[in-house]
């Protein structure tokens, strides 16, 4: 089945089996491997992308369902000159990543969180990221990164 999508501003089309998950379409067919897979139960959020500006777990969508969609993946977040997106920059500055595997999904989920709620409280950030798991950071610095990107860098944790 032919699937045509706009991804990070570029048009792609490929012939895929109807059962192909969007995440596998991105990764295996288009080579956009920045979007990761961390589970098989829609639990981890490693595969989070934006469809029409909203965050979606790309393992829960079939590629054919995304026909004609405007998709942004982690590869489309930094500027053409390589300037990091403010959310990426905040993750870097707040040490919001270690192994980096959850990071693309976290960055995508966090940017869509801020577009819906530009000034979240810390509790709202924690709640908003509930569907994204990280095994490395203990979330402390991820929450800090998102708060910093929102322009309200709180000093969370006395020692940090």
């Amino acid at each position: 089945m032919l699937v045509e999508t706009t991804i990070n501003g570029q048009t792609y089309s490929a012939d895929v089996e109807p059962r192909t998950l969007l995440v596998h379409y991105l990764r295996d067919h288009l080579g956009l491997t920045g979007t990761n897979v961390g589970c098989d139960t829609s639990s981890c959020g490693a595969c989070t992308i934006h469809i029409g500006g909203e965050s979606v777990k790309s393992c829960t969508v079939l590629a054919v369902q995304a026909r004609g969609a405007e998709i942004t993946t982690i590869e489309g977040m930094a500027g053409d000159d390589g300037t990091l997106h403010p959310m990426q920059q905040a993750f870097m500055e707040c040490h919001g990543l270690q192994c980096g595997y959850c990071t693309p999904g976290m960055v995508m989920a966090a940017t869509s969180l801020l577009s819906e709620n530009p000034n979240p409280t810390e509790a709202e950030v924690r709640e908003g990221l509930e569907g994204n798991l990280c095994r490395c950071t203990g979330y402390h610095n991820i929450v800090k990164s998102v708060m910093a990107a929102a322009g309200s860098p709180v000093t969370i944790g006395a020692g940090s």
Partner: protein
Amino acid sequence: MTAVVGTPRLRKEDPKLLTGEGKYVDDIQVAGQLWMGMVRSPYAHARINSIDTSAAEAADGVAGVYTGPQLAEMGLWIAPLPCAWPVTDDMVNPEHYPTAMDEVHHVGEIVAVVLADSRYGAADAAELVDVDYEPLDAVASIAAARDGSATAHSAHETNKAYHWPLIPDPDALEAAFANATHTVTGEFVQQRLIPAAMEPRGVLAVPSPMGGDVTLYSSTQVPHILKVMIAATTGISEAKLRIVAPAVGGGFGAKLNVNPDEILAVTLANKLGRAVRWTETRSEAAFSTHQGRGQLQKIELAADADGKITGCRVHVDADMGAYMMLITPGVPLLGSFLYTGVYDVPAFGFTCDGYFTNLTPTDAYRGAGRPEASYAIERAMDLLALEVGVGPDEIRRRNYLGGGDHFTDMETASTLVFDSGHYSPNLDAALEMSDYAGLRAEQQRRRDAGDAKQLGIGLCTYVEICGLAPSRALAGLNYGAGGWEHAMVRFLPTGKVEVVSGSTPHGQGHETSWSMIVADKLGIDPDDVTVLHSDTAISPLGLDTYGSRSLSVGGVAISMACDKVIDKAKQIAAHQMEANPDDLDFAGGTFSVKGQPGAELPIQAIAFGAFTAHDLPDGMEPNLQEQVTFDPPNFAFPFGTHVAVTEVDTETGEVELIDYIAIDDCGNQINPLIVEGQVHGGIVQGVAQALYEGASYDDAGNCRNPSLMDYLVPSAMEMPNIKTGFTTTPSTSNPLGVKGVGEAGTIGSAAAVVNAICDALSPYGVTDLEMPATPQRVWNAINGGAS
């Protein structure tokens, strides 16, 4: 150059990872690759009567289907999968091949593999393989293994794998208990944990077109160990194997093994001349990747009237699972030396019995034996405090090694020599940062008011063994390898520096930290340092990353290699400046002649001179590169005090962790940003054990919660902010004075959290709770039922 060591520096690794450029194994595609699909046993224990592969073979896109006996016949291996740690001479070690031969011993054991031309095709084909099993009685718990009415391996008469004792002075131990005023006993369950690194494990084996060389990309912590072990298992010469650990998405010990899939991918790729790949699904990982913990512990403390400990006796029954993996039997032993914690314990005894079950094998998981030990002693200290009638802070203070004062090189009852410690100020800092007195007042207020939400405050002063390890100490434990680490530092002609690291990161930020060490040593910019690692073709020597060893062994090796570079550069500088080497100073990257202002040479100029070799001292080899293999003289013993504050809803049994304070001491720090991150992540893994996680099995050996839907890895929602602070007690085991911090958080946090819950519930007579402390368990404990 101002010093960078000790300052929080942003990571070099991040831009790639933040933009999706990082390449994990599953991101690498090669032409002509075949996907491996595993046919896994649905039974924990069964005989394989027959396997029908015809339907799978006939399926579209299938390149081959192989049963265990067929693979064996193809001569793909010359030995079973390795166990590097036969803890006793008579340890039972059932043969463990990449696939089952005629009997399966845990759910998920591979019975056949299929090769297909797509990810989905491999999964489909595996479904088409029809296996006729004859189910056998399964051993699904340590209790069942001890009971012995069924055996996990039909070929063995018992489930017992080994008995390992460490009782330095049995008479003293007996006397301590005979003469004790107070004794307490704690019996604890260390539930099985699924490590759940966010990147599932995966492999890609690529044969070279000629010569029989194979490159294996694996999501592993241990490419160097893997290379040796694959060579020994398959008979393929080490010289023909190249192992690459690309970006690795977390490990936590779970990627420290030699797995069936790794052997299968390498040997099938080698045999067929085509690339072979496999990536585990998350639910498959509960069977295809080893698990952690799985112990029943009994700890007894003897104390005098003041609560001063006089003896500590421990017994552990440890669940090996179905097979001995790389260090399965040794994990409980890694903890054995830490059951006396940070305390001055005159008499000590530890015994461990290892048992086979029909469950996924256990092996290292963050802390590996040490979180278990720390949990037992720190829970027991709270029991002793209750028994003696003093606070948990006071009971610890009374028993700290060295009276809580600073010490170095102190021998302990468990036979280890602690490099350094200074526990009282560390406890003081934790009490102060947590406002301990204020918390106690609030606790009392809620108790007096009969508040439904009771406050609990839990303390833990942990100690960790890092810096694995002095090779001779490992020999004493029957471990099959050394504990050194290798490093090379080379100046390039352009004045930049390349470091080859034998330790291999999977999220710890080695490139950043190693650059900082080298920058300060050589007086150059950290951005002028490139760190190479994780590819055995580039870094042929190494013993990799686990046991919080990278910095205290590998980082030290790099620092020592820098010293050798400076020594050589000094000889060249002296020659070129016509000075005596002893008259040269080296600072900020420049050699200068004492007392001769202006007589200076930057080290980059010397590096270029070493490259051209036009004007070197007679007999000196060109180039400026040095290597060091560092074997540490002793372990390092970081420590810290954690305070967990929990709110326990006495009506629902729900526990909320409302505050967490951690004062850690890992000696000197290279990058405080990274240290703090390690502490945060470690703490959450320990909290997860205390409150949420546990692989649950039915009596037939089926895992009830293999997926992330049922296995509760906590999210940001469940976690509080973590307040961190540090004290600094440099190690005496290495010239950098560093200790290690990768596992510290996990070693301290489970005990702190359960101590806090028990503290909240002490008015209800609750003194213990089994992990994970689910609302149901807590509610039952409050209401007088079994915990």
